């Protein structure tokens, strides 16, 4: 089995290095290492090193390892105990459709293997826990997640069939390394909110990991706000694919103005006790509620 995997990985990369176009399988993958290698952002770094370096600093590059607690709780409590359901790919995908979109191309067995790593990373001990964490560090929301899999997530009637071998981009340039298709949706807030909002699973279940999108549409746009997610989190200050958010104090401070007036005096005629009045003003300049995720 290990030999077959090695041959597969060798063929995958050797075909790319021979200047053939970047390709992706249109079938389910059952082996963990093959799965990691297939969707590894390093495949894109050869041409897009600067973007890759930005992405490495982002929470998208840590979308599994940074979310162990919440996801493992869903896998160990939500699905089996509260819903009394089997933890299968259909349930696993309710978290991983955003945290690891390529799960779409994992077999049922591999999806369960990955779910097991998530559980062991939370409740395991010692070496078992460390090994599970090491596996999860290899999994993330990589380039392919946004530039292919999630493209049809918001408007499948318009985008239609997604070709696994096409890299969908916001720009209009072409590439010798892969098939490219210009996709304006990547510049729209609408694209981000499919995960940064209330998530509706294919079977209709909703999960409230965060609720930014409702706040953005109704409270920001509705009051005259006109910026997209990308304008603040990508285009401003050359943030690019680092896409800082609540984990980055610089952008947190940028989104909030603060003023405070402090005055001391004596209060109560005849009693003259020392008194203080503080007037504080917090202005949310962001395009969504604060805090949120």
């Amino acid at each position, binding site marked *: 089995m290990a030999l077959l995997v090695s041959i597969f990985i060798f063929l995958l990369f050797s075909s790319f290095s021979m200047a053939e176009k970047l390709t992706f399988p249109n079938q389910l993958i059952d082996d963990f290492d093959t799965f990691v290698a297939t969707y590894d952002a390093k495949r894109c770094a050869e041409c897009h090193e600067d973007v890759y370096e930005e992405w490495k600093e982002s929470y998208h590059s840590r979308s599994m390892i940074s979310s162990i607690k919440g996801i493992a709780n869903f896998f160990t409590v939500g699905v089996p105990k509260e819903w009394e359901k089997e933890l299968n790919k259909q349930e696993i995908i309710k978290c991983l459709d955003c945290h690891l979109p390529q799960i779409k191309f994992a077999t049922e067995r591999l999806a369960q293997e990955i779910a097991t790593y998530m559980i062991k990373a939370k409740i395991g001990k010692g070496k078992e826990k460390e090994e599970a964490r090491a596996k999860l560090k290899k999994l993330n929301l990589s380039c392919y997640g946004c530039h292919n899999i999630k493209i049809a997530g918001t408007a499948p009637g318009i985008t239609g069939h997604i070709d696994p071998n096409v890299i969908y981009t916001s720009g209009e340039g072409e590439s010798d390394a892969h098939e490219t298709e210009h996709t304006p949706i990547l510049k729209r807030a609408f694209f981000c909110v499919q995960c940064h909002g209330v998530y509706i699973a294919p079977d209709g279940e909703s999960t409230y990991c965060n609720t930014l999108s409702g706040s953005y549409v109704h*409270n920001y746009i509705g009051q005259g706000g006109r910026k997209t997610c990308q304008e603040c989190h990508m285009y401003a200050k050359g943030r690019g694919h680092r896409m800082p958010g*609540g984990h980055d*104090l610089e952008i947190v401070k940028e989104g909030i103005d603060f003023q405070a007036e402090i005055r001391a005096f*004596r209060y109560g005629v005849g009693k003259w006790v*020392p*008194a*203080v009045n*503080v007037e504080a003003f917090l*202005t949310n300049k962001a395009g969504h509620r604060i805090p949120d995720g």
Partner: protein
Amino acid sequence: MVLEVTAKDPETGKVLYHDTRKYFEIGLDLDGFMRYGAWQIKEIVDLTLQPLKTQHERFFFTFAQKDLEKAEIAVNVYYYISGKKGDLIYQVKKLVEFPEMP
């Protein structure tokens, strides 16, 4: 996010006053119970800072110690990325003096 006001005796460091305002979402399940699990939450009570709005908070307090001459007032704003880790993002500090008694 937490807005915190603290008054201290500048000589002893003793806290004379402390109050906070908290801004967050409370997740509720279908029965109206507070929940943390994303799969359980079907509604929220929104106590966050709303976009393009200014939240005005007023703190008025007195001190029992009539001969208090000075107090150190600190107004802090903390951002919590999780329930445990709070980062100080803004601070206004002032040493105030109370008018002398007539």
